[in-house]
């Protein structure tokens, strides 16, 4: 179990029950529902995320975690529901505006831009670039100074992520783990308020996992809020101020790590399972009516390139 953080202290008095109110929420979700045909992939009645906290979103495959990410960040539209991010209503806002408003995501299957160099990948992340306007781009004096400042910031981040030696390599030449690092560093170039990380450690070797973990832990000290999906329970327990558990699209539990790990519903549903194949069990949400089918994959994702992450899934280990 990790050391207490300002966020975990602030959350100490919050009751560990689904949909509970937080003292200083940055994201407030109400009645967000997404169905694909007859299947309800996400059905979140109420959820609040504490500002400055690292919140983990866990749950078996098909629980709707990635779909929930897609909905929050504008990559998918819900059938119903509203959500406020830092006071702004984000329902119906397109993905690029969500990113500009400070909520930046990464992807489960990394999206390193293969035919751009690492540095170009980084510089792309900066917002409000004058040179990105078509006509202004033809007049370099209008953007050269800003470009230099962006490059400086990119180089600093690359040093922080220990990727400065790869600066001029093409993104496509990086290993799977380096791509994960690059994607996280690139997301930070946006100067986000909240970072949504979709399985940032998947397919990454243990040494690099430690380094990635440290980067995630550092984010709150830069004033950022983190929501991340992760299957490795050691990582989740080590890093989280708060844990939200999803199953079949619903929030079945939430609370601090020590409470959630002892929650009988979660144990039976997820954590305590010792079998390797997690797809074999489909926990029924508390108080749910007829069980809904499990959605295997959210629409934005494809299994393309999945062999990159061919290592044994972390959740197959015992907690």
């Amino acid at each position, binding site marked *: 179990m990790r050391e207490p953080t300002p966020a975990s202290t602030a959350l100490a008095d919050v009751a560990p029950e689904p949909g509970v109110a937080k003292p200083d929420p940055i994201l407030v979700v109400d009645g967000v529902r997404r169905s694909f045909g007859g299947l309800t992939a996400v059905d979140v009645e109420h959820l609040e995320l504490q500002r400055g906290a690292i919140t983990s979103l866990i749950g078996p495959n098909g629980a709707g975690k990635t779909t929930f990410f897609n909905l929050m*960040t504008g*990559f998918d539209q819900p059938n119903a529901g509203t959500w406020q991010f830092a006071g702004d209503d984000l329902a119906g806002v*397109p*993905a*690029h*505006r969500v*990113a*500009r408003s400070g909520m*930046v*995501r*990464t*992807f489960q299957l990394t*999206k390193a*831009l*293969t*035919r*751009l160099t690492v540095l*170009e990948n980084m*510089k*792309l*992340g900066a*917002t409000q*670039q*004058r*040179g*990105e*306007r*078509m006509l202004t*781009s*033809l007049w*370099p004096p209008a*953007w050269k100074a800003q*470009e230099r400042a962006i490059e400086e910031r990119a180089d600093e981040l690359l040093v922080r992520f220990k990727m400065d030696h790869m600066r001029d390599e*093409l*993104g*496509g*030449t990086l290993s799977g783990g380096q791509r994960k690092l690059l994607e996280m560093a*690139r*997301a930070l*170039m*946006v100067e986000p308020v909240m970072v949504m990380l979709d399985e940032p450690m998947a397919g990454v070797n243990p040494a690099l996992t430690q380094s990635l973990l440290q980067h995630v832990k550092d984010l709150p000290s830069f004033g950022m809020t983190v929501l991340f999906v992760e299957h490795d329970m050691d990582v989740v327990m080590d890093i989280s101020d708060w844990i939200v558990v999803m199953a079949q699209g619903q929030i079945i539990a939430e609370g601090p790590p020590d409470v959630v790990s002892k929650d009988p519903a979660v144990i039976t549903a997820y954590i305590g399972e010792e079998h390797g194949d997690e797809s074999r069990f489909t926990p029924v949400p508390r108080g749910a009516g007829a069980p809904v089918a499990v959605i295997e994959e959210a629409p*934005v994702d494809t299994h393309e390139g999945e062999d990159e992450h061919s290592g044994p899934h972390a959740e197959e280990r015992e907690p």
Partner: protein
Amino acid sequence: MDITTILAGGLNTAVGPTTVVFALAAIGLNVHYGYTGLLNFGQVGFMLVGAYGMAITVSIVGLPFWVGILAGLAAAVVLALLLGVPTLRLRADYLAISTIAAAEILRFVFRSGPFVPITGGPFGIPSGPGGPGFTQTWDALNPFPPGSYQFGWLSFTHSRLWVTVVGWTLVALASLLVWALTRSPWGRVVKSIREDEDAARALGKNVFAYKMQSLVLGGMLGGLAGIVLALSQAALSPDQFLPQLTFFAYAVLIMGGAASVLGPVVGAMLFWFLISSVERFLLGTGIMPTGTIGPTRLALVGLLLIVLMAFRPQGLLGNKREMMLDA
């Protein structure tokens, strides 16, 4: 059969107006496909509306030549918007299907009966149907006195020389524009869209707007290619704008090297040099009737292309390091 005649003929084509037309069309495709990853399979449609926009405005409506040029370019912009608005939010293949269909629809509409008074139907628009034609101002602007001009192996009539000089100036300006755009942050964004548009979106880029800008710019270059084509032949007809023109332009682009600034220019020169010299070679040998030479030269050039792609998949000027990465 004289080898120098064959090479001289090929060279004359390689620097002539046809090469200019395909260089411009391929530069437009390079913006679409090479840099932004847009699959436009109807570049010939942009050439058609550019050429007809200019010719109709000048020859049929009777407005000045410069207005005609602007009308041709504006027609290309309108076509880009019409195609882009419904398809650019969808996956790449939808644009491909719409563009190839739109180009054919345009050709059939322009040659159809009801539009004969405007488009001249299947016979198209000669430069001057009973009035000042669209080449009148163009010819008047020609600074070269009538006659023929000889530069080493190259020979020009005064009007061909005029089109050639203006055409290559346009190619140079278009290349300069593409160079300036693609080395800027704007270019970085469109390249990122080519690589993965969701990643660009997640970083706050308005992907739709960038794709639209790219479609419009490349379409205008296609329209410009159509205008140069109409001026170089002082006439135009709908059946010149067959779908294979788009694929010739793609061949030019891939041969020269997609996503390189001068790739389309070098590709166009090589493509037309090969087409022309192979044709002359076949004519010279006399091994087949003239009627079969046309298809045969295409087949032979196709074979040469396959060989080139096998040994140089990135094209003449493309970046091999980039080519070898799988996406």
